[in-house]
Protein backbone atom coordinates (compact mmCIF):
# COMPACT_ATOMS: atom_id res chain seq x y z
CA UNK A 1 0.00 0.00 0.00
CA UNK A 2 1.52 3.35 -1.02
CA UNK A 3 2.52 5.54 1.84
CA UNK A 4 0.79 8.92 1.93
CA UNK A 5 2.80 12.05 2.67
CA UNK A 6 2.70 12.66 6.40
CA UNK A 7 1.83 9.08 7.43
CA UNK A 8 5.15 8.62 9.20
CA UNK A 9 4.73 11.99 10.86
CA UNK A 10 1.45 10.90 12.48
CA UNK A 11 3.23 8.07 14.28
CA UNK A 12 6.24 10.25 15.03
CA UNK A 13 4.01 13.05 16.35
CA UNK A 14 2.03 10.71 18.61
CA UNK A 15 5.26 9.29 19.98
CA UNK A 16 6.55 12.82 20.53
CA UNK A 17 3.45 13.70 22.55
CA UNK A 18 3.92 10.48 24.52
CA UNK A 19 7.54 11.39 25.28
CA UNK A 20 6.47 14.89 26.28
CA UNK A 21 3.93 13.48 28.74
CA UNK A 22 6.43 11.01 30.16
CA UNK A 23 9.10 13.67 30.65
CA UNK A 24 6.52 16.04 32.16
CA UNK A 25 5.51 13.35 34.67
CA UNK A 26 9.17 12.87 35.58
CA UNK A 27 9.71 16.60 36.12
CA UNK A 28 6.41 17.32 37.92
CA UNK A 29 7.30 15.95 41.39
CA UNK A 30 10.57 17.92 41.44
CA UNK A 31 8.85 21.08 40.20
CA UNK A 32 6.02 20.77 42.74
CA UNK A 33 8.57 20.29 45.53
CA UNK A 34 10.54 23.34 44.40
CA UNK A 35 7.37 25.41 44.14
CA UNK A 36 6.26 24.41 47.64
CA UNK A 37 9.62 25.27 49.20
CA UNK A 38 9.73 28.56 47.29
CA UNK A 39 6.15 29.38 48.34
CA UNK A 40 7.07 31.87 51.12
CA UNK A 41 9.08 34.00 48.66
CA UNK A 42 6.73 33.58 45.70
CA UNK A 43 3.61 34.08 47.84
CA UNK A 44 4.83 37.37 49.28
CA UNK A 45 5.76 38.63 45.84
CA UNK A 46 2.37 37.66 44.40
CA UNK A 47 0.71 39.28 47.43
CA UNK A 48 2.50 42.59 46.78
CA UNK A 49 1.45 42.61 43.12
CA UNK A 50 -2.12 41.63 44.13
CA UNK A 51 -2.25 44.56 46.59
CA UNK A 52 -1.24 46.91 43.76
CA UNK A 53 -4.00 45.45 41.59
CA UNK A 54 -6.56 45.87 44.38
CA UNK A 55 -5.37 49.45 44.82
CA UNK A 56 -6.13 50.12 41.15
CA UNK A 57 -9.67 48.80 41.61
CA UNK A 58 -10.33 50.33 45.02
CA UNK A 59 -7.69 52.59 46.53
CA UNK A 60 -6.75 52.57 50.24
CA UNK A 61 -8.44 49.26 50.92
CA UNK A 62 -5.32 47.38 52.08
CA UNK A 63 -3.00 48.88 54.70
CA UNK A 64 -0.57 45.98 55.21
CA UNK A 65 0.21 42.42 54.12
CA UNK A 66 1.36 39.74 56.54
CA UNK A 67 2.53 36.17 55.93
CA UNK A 68 1.29 33.37 58.17
CA UNK A 69 1.65 29.61 57.58
CA UNK A 70 1.76 29.80 53.78
CA UNK A 71 -1.19 32.21 53.82
CA UNK A 72 -1.34 35.89 52.99
CA UNK A 73 -3.13 38.11 55.46
CA UNK A 74 -4.38 41.38 54.04
CA UNK A 75 -4.95 43.97 56.77
CA UNK A 76 -7.69 46.25 55.45
CA UNK A 77 -8.78 49.74 56.47
CA UNK A 78 -12.32 48.49 57.05
CA UNK A 79 -13.72 48.79 60.58
CA UNK A 80 -15.82 46.02 62.06
CA UNK A 81 -17.73 45.81 65.32
CA UNK A 82 -17.54 42.25 66.64
CA UNK A 83 -19.23 43.50 69.84
CA UNK A 84 -21.18 46.74 70.41
CA UNK A 85 -18.39 48.45 72.39
CA UNK A 86 -15.44 47.06 70.45
CA UNK A 87 -13.92 48.06 67.09
CA UNK A 88 -11.44 46.11 64.99
CA UNK A 89 -9.92 46.14 61.52
CA UNK A 90 -10.90 43.44 59.07
CA UNK A 91 -8.11 41.02 58.13
CA UNK A 92 -8.66 38.80 55.09
CA UNK A 93 -6.75 35.56 54.61
CA UNK A 94 -5.89 34.24 51.13
CA UNK A 95 -4.06 31.04 50.19
CA UNK A 96 -1.73 32.06 47.31
CA UNK A 97 -0.87 28.43 46.50
CA UNK A 98 -4.36 28.12 44.97
CA UNK A 99 -3.32 30.60 42.31
CA UNK A 100 0.32 29.69 41.76
CA UNK A 101 0.19 25.89 41.29
CA UNK A 102 0.37 26.43 37.54
CA UNK A 103 4.02 27.46 37.90
CA UNK A 104 5.32 23.91 38.55
CA UNK A 105 3.13 22.63 35.70
CA UNK A 106 4.57 25.27 33.36
CA UNK A 107 8.18 24.62 34.40
CA UNK A 108 7.70 20.83 34.09
CA UNK A 109 6.21 21.22 30.59
CA UNK A 110 9.01 23.56 29.52
CA UNK A 111 11.73 21.28 30.90
CA UNK A 112 10.03 18.32 29.21
CA UNK A 113 10.12 20.22 25.91
CA UNK A 114 13.78 21.11 26.60
CA UNK A 115 13.06 24.83 26.45
CA UNK A 116 15.76 27.42 26.99
CA UNK A 117 16.24 28.83 30.49
CA UNK A 118 15.29 32.38 29.48
CA UNK A 119 11.95 31.10 28.17
CA UNK A 120 11.19 29.44 31.50
CA UNK A 121 12.08 32.61 33.40
CA UNK A 122 10.09 34.80 31.00
CA UNK A 123 7.10 32.47 31.31
CA UNK A 124 7.30 32.54 35.10
CA UNK A 125 7.33 36.34 34.97
CA UNK A 126 4.34 36.37 32.59
CA UNK A 127 2.41 34.11 34.97
CA UNK A 128 2.78 36.59 37.82
CA UNK A 129 0.00 39.06 36.85
CA UNK A 130 -2.47 36.20 36.46
CA UNK A 131 -1.50 34.74 39.83
CA UNK A 132 -1.88 38.20 41.36
CA UNK A 133 -5.28 38.49 39.67
CA UNK A 134 -6.42 35.32 41.45
CA UNK A 135 -5.21 36.52 44.85
CA UNK A 136 -6.65 40.03 44.34
CA UNK A 137 -10.09 38.77 43.36
CA UNK A 138 -10.09 36.23 46.20
CA UNK A 139 -9.60 39.19 48.55
CA UNK A 140 -12.24 41.27 46.74
CA UNK A 141 -14.81 38.47 46.67
CA UNK A 142 -14.40 37.99 50.41
CA UNK A 143 -14.97 41.70 51.00
CA UNK A 144 -17.56 42.42 48.33
CA UNK A 145 -19.62 39.21 48.30
CA UNK A 146 -19.03 36.92 51.27
CA UNK A 147 -18.72 39.30 54.23
CA UNK A 148 -22.22 40.70 54.10
CA UNK A 149 -23.87 43.93 52.97
CA UNK A 150 -22.32 46.16 55.65
CA UNK A 151 -18.73 45.23 54.77
CA UNK A 152 -19.28 45.38 50.99
CA UNK A 153 -20.90 48.83 51.34
CA UNK A 154 -18.05 50.08 53.52
CA UNK A 155 -15.52 48.71 50.99
CA UNK A 156 -17.41 50.38 48.14
CA UNK A 157 -17.84 47.04 46.40
CA UNK A 158 -21.63 46.68 46.53
CA UNK A 159 -24.09 46.50 43.62
CA UNK A 160 -22.82 45.96 40.08
CA UNK A 161 -19.23 45.91 41.32
CA UNK A 162 -19.90 42.69 43.23
CA UNK A 163 -21.12 41.07 39.98
CA UNK A 164 -17.88 42.03 38.21
CA UNK A 165 -15.88 40.83 41.20
CA UNK A 166 -17.68 37.48 41.01
CA UNK A 167 -16.76 37.12 37.33
CA UNK A 168 -13.15 38.15 38.01
CA UNK A 169 -12.98 35.60 40.81
CA UNK A 170 -14.32 32.81 38.57
CA UNK A 171 -11.65 33.59 35.97
CA UNK A 172 -8.91 33.92 38.56
CA UNK A 173 -9.74 30.73 40.42
CA UNK A 174 -11.14 28.31 37.84
CA UNK A 175 -9.50 29.30 34.57
CA UNK A 176 -6.26 31.26 34.90
CA UNK A 177 -4.27 29.06 37.32
CA UNK A 178 -4.27 26.00 35.05
CA UNK A 179 -4.93 27.48 31.61
CA UNK A 180 -2.35 30.29 31.46
CA UNK A 181 0.67 28.00 32.09
CA UNK A 182 -0.44 25.69 29.26
CA UNK A 183 -1.25 28.62 26.96
CA UNK A 184 2.20 30.06 27.61
CA UNK A 185 3.78 26.70 26.90
CA UNK A 186 1.92 26.52 23.58
CA UNK A 187 3.01 30.06 22.71
CA UNK A 188 6.66 29.43 23.61
CA UNK A 189 6.88 26.08 21.85
CA UNK A 190 4.61 26.87 18.93
CA UNK A 191 2.87 23.55 19.44
CA UNK A 192 2.49 23.01 15.73
CA UNK A 193 6.23 23.16 15.08
CA UNK A 194 7.21 21.05 18.01
CA UNK A 195 4.70 18.29 17.42
CA UNK A 196 4.32 18.25 13.62
CA UNK A 197 0.76 19.43 13.83
CA UNK A 198 -0.85 21.39 10.98
CA UNK A 199 -0.47 24.69 12.81
CA UNK A 200 -1.64 27.57 10.63
CA UNK A 201 1.28 29.89 11.44
CA UNK A 202 3.70 30.13 8.51
CA UNK A 203 6.97 29.85 10.40
CA UNK A 204 5.89 26.89 12.50
CA UNK A 205 4.52 25.19 9.40
CA UNK A 206 7.93 25.30 7.75
CA UNK A 207 9.54 23.88 10.83
CA UNK A 208 7.02 21.03 10.76
CA UNK A 209 7.96 20.25 7.16
CA UNK A 210 11.64 19.98 7.99
CA UNK A 211 10.92 17.57 10.82
CA UNK A 212 8.62 15.56 8.59
CA UNK A 213 11.39 15.16 6.05
CA UNK A 214 13.71 13.94 8.80
CA UNK A 215 11.18 11.37 9.99
CA UNK A 216 10.91 9.74 6.60
Amino acid at each position, binding site marked *: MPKRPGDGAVTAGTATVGRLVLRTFLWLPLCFAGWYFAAPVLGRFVGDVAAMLVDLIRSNLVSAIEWQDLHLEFVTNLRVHPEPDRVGVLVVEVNPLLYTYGLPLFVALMLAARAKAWMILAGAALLLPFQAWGVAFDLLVQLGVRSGAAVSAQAGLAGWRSELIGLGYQLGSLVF*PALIPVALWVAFNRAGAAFHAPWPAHKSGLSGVVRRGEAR
Partner: protein
Amino acid sequence: MARFFLTFVVILVGLLAAELTPPVQDAVVVPWTNALVRISAGLLTLADSHVAAFGKILQSTANGFAISIEAGCNGVEAAIILAAAMLAFPASWKQRAAGIAAGLVAIQALNVVRVISLFYLGQWNLRAFEWAHLYLWQALIMLDVLVVWLLWMRTLAPDPRMRTVDAEAAR
Protein backbone atom coordinates in the same frame (compact mmCIF):
# COMPACT_ATOMS: atom_id res chain seq x y z
CA MET B 1 -1.10 32.08 16.11
CA ALA B 2 -2.35 35.47 17.36
CA ARG B 3 -5.62 34.90 15.49
CA PHE B 4 -5.99 31.49 17.11
CA PHE B 5 -5.45 32.90 20.61
CA LEU B 6 -7.89 35.75 20.03
CA THR B 7 -10.60 33.41 18.72
CA PHE B 8 -9.89 31.02 21.58
CA VAL B 9 -10.30 33.75 24.21
CA VAL B 10 -13.56 35.03 22.68
CA ILE B 11 -15.07 31.52 22.55
CA LEU B 12 -13.76 30.68 26.02
CA VAL B 13 -15.23 33.78 27.67
CA GLY B 14 -18.54 33.21 25.87
CA LEU B 15 -18.78 29.58 26.97
CA LEU B 16 -17.73 30.38 30.56
CA ALA B 17 -20.27 33.19 30.79
CA ALA B 18 -22.95 30.82 29.43
CA GLU B 19 -21.90 28.19 31.98
CA LEU B 20 -22.59 30.60 34.84
CA THR B 21 -26.16 31.37 33.71
CA PRO B 22 -28.98 29.65 35.67
CA PRO B 23 -30.50 27.89 32.61
CA VAL B 24 -27.17 26.23 31.70
CA GLN B 25 -26.49 25.41 35.35
CA ASP B 26 -29.93 23.77 35.66
CA ALA B 27 -29.89 21.98 32.30
CA VAL B 28 -26.25 20.90 32.05
CA VAL B 29 -23.91 21.58 34.97
CA VAL B 30 -25.98 20.33 37.91
CA PRO B 31 -27.31 17.18 36.11
CA TRP B 32 -23.79 16.39 34.90
CA THR B 33 -22.30 16.86 38.39
CA ASN B 34 -24.93 14.53 39.86
CA ALA B 35 -24.29 12.01 37.07
CA LEU B 36 -20.55 12.19 37.79
CA VAL B 37 -21.23 11.30 41.42
CA ARG B 38 -23.48 8.39 40.37
CA ILE B 39 -20.90 7.09 37.86
CA SER B 40 -18.14 7.30 40.49
CA ALA B 41 -20.36 5.60 43.08
CA GLY B 42 -21.32 2.91 40.57
CA LEU B 43 -17.67 2.14 39.87
CA LEU B 44 -16.74 2.26 43.55
CA THR B 45 -19.48 -0.16 44.57
CA LEU B 46 -17.92 -2.80 42.33
CA ALA B 47 -15.17 -3.13 44.93
CA ASP B 48 -16.50 -1.28 47.98
CA SER B 49 -20.01 -1.75 49.36
CA HIS B 50 -19.66 1.16 51.83
CA VAL B 51 -20.36 3.92 49.33
CA ALA B 52 -23.46 6.09 49.00
CA ALA B 53 -24.31 8.94 46.61
CA PHE B 54 -26.65 11.84 47.45
CA GLY B 55 -26.94 14.54 44.78
CA LYS B 56 -23.41 15.91 44.42
CA ILE B 57 -22.14 14.17 47.57
CA LEU B 58 -20.22 10.91 47.68
CA GLN B 59 -20.03 9.38 51.14
CA SER B 60 -18.44 6.42 52.84
CA THR B 61 -21.01 4.66 55.00
CA ALA B 62 -18.13 2.98 56.87
CA ASN B 63 -16.59 6.11 58.41
CA GLY B 64 -18.86 8.98 57.35
CA PHE B 65 -16.21 10.69 55.20
CA ALA B 66 -17.83 12.55 52.31
CA ILE B 67 -16.77 14.65 49.35
CA SER B 68 -18.91 17.16 47.49
CA ILE B 69 -18.33 17.74 43.78
CA GLU B 70 -18.26 21.50 43.31
CA ALA B 71 -17.58 23.90 40.42
CA GLY B 72 -14.05 23.30 39.21
CA CYS B 73 -14.19 19.63 40.22
CA ASN B 74 -16.78 18.45 37.70
CA GLY B 75 -14.51 18.80 34.68
CA VAL B 76 -16.85 21.30 33.00
CA GLU B 77 -14.30 24.13 32.88
CA ALA B 78 -11.65 21.78 31.48
CA ALA B 79 -14.13 20.60 28.83
CA ILE B 80 -14.95 24.21 27.95
CA ILE B 81 -11.25 25.06 27.56
CA LEU B 82 -10.71 22.07 25.27
CA ALA B 83 -13.82 22.82 23.21
CA ALA B 84 -12.74 26.46 22.80
CA ALA B 85 -9.26 25.39 21.68
CA MET B 86 -10.71 22.97 19.11
CA LEU B 87 -13.29 25.44 17.85
CA ALA B 88 -10.63 28.15 17.48
CA PHE B 89 -8.28 25.90 15.52
CA PRO B 90 -8.76 25.70 11.72
CA ALA B 91 -10.50 22.37 11.07
CA SER B 92 -13.72 21.07 9.55
CA TRP B 93 -16.86 20.99 11.71
CA LYS B 94 -16.83 17.19 11.51
CA GLN B 95 -13.26 17.08 12.85
CA ARG B 96 -14.13 19.55 15.60
CA ALA B 97 -17.23 17.58 16.62
CA ALA B 98 -15.28 14.31 16.71
CA GLY B 99 -12.45 15.96 18.68
CA ILE B 100 -14.76 17.55 21.21
CA ALA B 101 -16.68 14.28 21.70
CA ALA B 102 -13.49 12.25 22.18
CA GLY B 103 -12.01 15.00 24.36
CA LEU B 104 -15.03 15.11 26.64
CA VAL B 105 -14.76 11.36 27.17
CA ALA B 106 -11.02 11.62 27.90
CA ILE B 107 -11.43 14.51 30.35
CA GLN B 108 -14.37 13.01 32.19
CA ALA B 109 -12.76 9.57 32.36
CA LEU B 110 -9.74 11.12 34.09
CA ASN B 111 -12.08 13.19 36.24
CA VAL B 112 -13.77 10.02 37.49
CA VAL B 113 -10.31 8.73 38.41
CA ARG B 114 -9.71 12.03 40.24
CA VAL B 115 -12.97 11.78 42.19
CA ILE B 116 -12.35 8.16 43.16
CA SER B 117 -8.71 8.77 44.13
CA LEU B 118 -9.66 11.81 46.24
CA PHE B 119 -12.45 9.85 47.93
CA TYR B 120 -9.94 7.30 49.24
CA LEU B 121 -7.10 9.77 49.75
CA GLY B 122 -9.35 11.84 52.05
CA GLN B 123 -10.16 8.79 54.16
CA TRP B 124 -6.46 8.07 54.51
CA ASN B 125 -4.95 11.52 55.08
CA LEU B 126 -6.66 14.92 54.90
CA ARG B 127 -3.44 16.82 54.22
CA ALA B 128 -2.63 14.58 51.25
CA PHE B 129 -6.23 14.97 50.10
CA GLU B 130 -5.96 18.76 50.21
CA TRP B 131 -2.70 18.75 48.27
CA ALA B 132 -3.98 16.41 45.60
CA HIS B 133 -7.36 18.15 45.39
CA LEU B 134 -6.24 21.77 45.29
CA TYR B 135 -3.00 21.57 43.34
CA LEU B 136 -1.94 18.24 41.83
CA TRP B 137 -5.14 17.04 40.17
CA GLN B 138 -5.89 20.51 38.81
CA ALA B 139 -2.55 20.42 37.00
CA LEU B 140 -3.07 16.84 35.78
CA ILE B 141 -6.51 17.57 34.34
CA MET B 142 -5.08 20.53 32.43
CA LEU B 143 -2.24 18.33 31.20
CA ASP B 144 -4.91 15.91 29.96
CA VAL B 145 -6.58 18.75 28.05
CA LEU B 146 -3.26 19.69 26.43
CA VAL B 147 -2.48 16.09 25.43
CA VAL B 148 -5.93 15.53 23.93
CA TRP B 149 -5.62 18.79 21.98
CA LEU B 150 -2.16 17.90 20.65
CA LEU B 151 -3.29 14.42 19.63
CA TRP B 152 -6.39 15.84 17.97
CA MET B 153 -4.22 18.24 15.97
CA ARG B 154 -2.26 15.20 14.78
CA THR B 155 -5.42 13.72 13.27
CA LEU B 156 -6.11 16.79 11.12
CA ALA B 157 -5.17 16.76 7.46
CA PRO B 158 -1.83 18.50 6.88
CA ASP B 159 -1.89 22.06 5.67
CA PRO B 160 -1.78 22.06 1.78
CA ARG B 161 1.17 24.48 1.89
CA MET B 162 3.09 22.03 4.03
CA ARG B 163 2.29 19.14 1.69
CA THR B 164 3.68 21.09 -1.28
CA VAL B 165 6.97 21.84 0.43
CA ASP B 166 6.95 18.31 1.85
CA ALA B 167 6.79 16.87 -1.67
CA GLU B 168 9.61 19.15 -2.78
CA ALA B 169 11.73 18.02 0.14
CA ALA B 170 11.16 14.39 -0.84
CA ARG B 171 12.53 14.94 -4.36
